[in-house]
């Protein structure tokens, strides 16, 4: 049922890209593959009938979190006179692998979009409305508790980060 050609392709791309993430020695190279892996995951969500989750995956992970990663990588290299070495990190050659994988994803996505959805197929599309109704209906308490989860993360990060800046008591 869901084991059709696009799904298999997305899954293979995701697995291969993730493998490349963990085997790259340079952080930036790993990040490039990580973006591809997240995009592949988003495509899998879409094929499974969860376009909302797919879009969130792209916006939150491939978008926001990746920017954060790139920021951290850049900040960690601050003040080192190794611009030359940084230049060698992003050569056209490093783009080839992720580029090919991303092109594969795009082709498969276009193929999947072009195909007419099968009538009464096993895939039930879960749209934004259903997600919202679940979140603010039976799971509204979880949304509230998730805010406490974020608060815990915030306070912990505040506590740890305050002293990294070298401040003592406020």
């Amino acid at each position, binding site marked *: 049922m869901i084991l059709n050609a696009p799904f298999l392709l997305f899954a293979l791309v995701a697995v291969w890209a993730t493998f490349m993430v963990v085997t790259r020695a340079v952080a930036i190279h790993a990040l490039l593959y990580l973006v591809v892996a997240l995009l592949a995951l988003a495509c899998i969500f879409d094929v499974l009938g969860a376009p909302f989750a797919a879009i969130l995956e792209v916006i939150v992970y491939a978008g926001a979190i990746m920017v954060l990663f790139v920021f951290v990588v850049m900040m960690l290299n601050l003040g080192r006179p190794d611009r030359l070495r940084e230049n060698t990190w992003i050569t056209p050659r490093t783009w080839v692998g992720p580029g090919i994988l991303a092109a594969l994803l795009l082709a498969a996505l276009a193929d999947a979009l072009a195909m007419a959805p099968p009538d009464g197929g096993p895939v039930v599309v879960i749209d934004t409305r259903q997600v919202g109704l679940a979140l603010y209906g039976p799971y*509204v308490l*979880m949304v509230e508790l998730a805010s406490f989860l974020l608060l815990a993360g915030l*306070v*912990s990060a505040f*506590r740890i980060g305050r002293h990294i800046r070298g401040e003592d008591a406020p």
Partner: protein
Amino acid sequence: MIAALVATLPDMPMPVLVLAAGILVLLLAIACRGSRPSGAAGGTDDRTDGGTVAGAIISAATIALAFIGLWSPASPPSGGMARLFAADAWFAYGTGLILLSSGGILAMSWRRMAGERADEAHLLLLLGTLGAVVAAGSANAVAFFVGLETLSLSLLGLIAYRPRVPDAAEAAMKYLVLSGTSSAILLFGLALAYAETGDLRFTAPPAANPAEPALAVAATILVLTGLFFKLSAAPFHLWLADVLDGAPTPVSAFVAVVSKIALFVALARYFAMTDLTGTSLPAQDLAVVAVLSMVGGNLLAFGQTNLKRLLAGSSIAHVGYLLVALLSAGPFGAGSAAFYLAAYAAATLGAFAALGAGPDRPDLAAWRGMFHRRPALALALSVMLLSLAGIPPAVGFFAKAYIVAAGVSAHRMLLLAALIVSSIIGLCYYLNVARIMMAPAPDTAPAMAARSGGTTVLLAALALATLLIGLFPGPLVQRTTALFLPAVPATETAARARGPFENMRW
């Protein structure tokens, strides 16, 4: 959304509501104080200390109110809602233990946490307690995961509480990485369970097609692996000693007591509907981990010269004993697990409180001759260690005997053999500590921690409780056994609010 929220609030167990409200009040108090302009350096210290005390009072009041809230009548679950929490007797018992332990940890750190102002510590302590209570009471995988992560993230801040201490940063880093890994494994298991059954109930998934149970078993094993990581059962225990050693002493107690109670309560709930008496794969997995934890934990503690690491090994071993109780389904099994949980919590909390009141460094050598220098402190630590070792006047003896009785009645001979062998190993190192404390005192006294009224009171109360319950275990036994007696389902509501253990095969 507000209407939906108000309508579902009664579904939340009372302690969760009280703790959440208390966190908001504390946050507000900290914010109000923080916005005031700070005065001269000398003047601020007093004022901020006063603010810390106010925070401690708010935290203590919250924990006390949440404890009282346990006796509030359970409201019937509203129809049609996904059932998120199971507010049954097992939850009430576990939450009671969690809240009492958190209160004890607050008493240890109400003013100073490892020499630092304890403002954020109070907030993180309440948040961690909230997470523990949610995780212990969840009947839904989402609720469990949110609670667990709240607990883990607050612990992260608490473990790294001491600034510029490399050990603390190292411990926090280890905890962060391993906690993240184990959460990922746990989530994988929950996702597989959802794929198999199509619902998010937090229970070992029954196979949709009994002829092919592979997916359901894989899901159970993955969830178990995640839980074992957090419970630090062997062979997933390597982080515990480093984390306990690097964290401030009250936080070590929090990791070793509160988070383990919450996870064990959740683990028991996860298997409430499963028959663990047979040779199913999850039961075998549990049995192997129990043996490895008992033997491995005690061997780890054997020969340790650092008391915190010694307690880490002892904590791993006690998780193994608890698993034996869980595996001994029978008339005594569940009750003995509940009883042992209380005994473990009291003794471990007390041991850490004694460490907090003792020398600055947790080296065993610093405790040499403590019976001559600080007899009361040495006596208190000895009582706690006797209880952990299972020697008669303390409650640990009865708790262990209870588990052995449960194991015998469930014919768990191999597990019992491992329990007895590892208990003997345990005796050696617990008694070694007492021997060192009785040795003649050296000339140079080690630097002692500042005396704290809270720790002294806590230590005295715990020592008294350990001895009294050890001498008169009857009331607690009745209470723990009553937890699992099938309640008469008088109404439909009562039938729905049944405890998890009633479907266990006796």
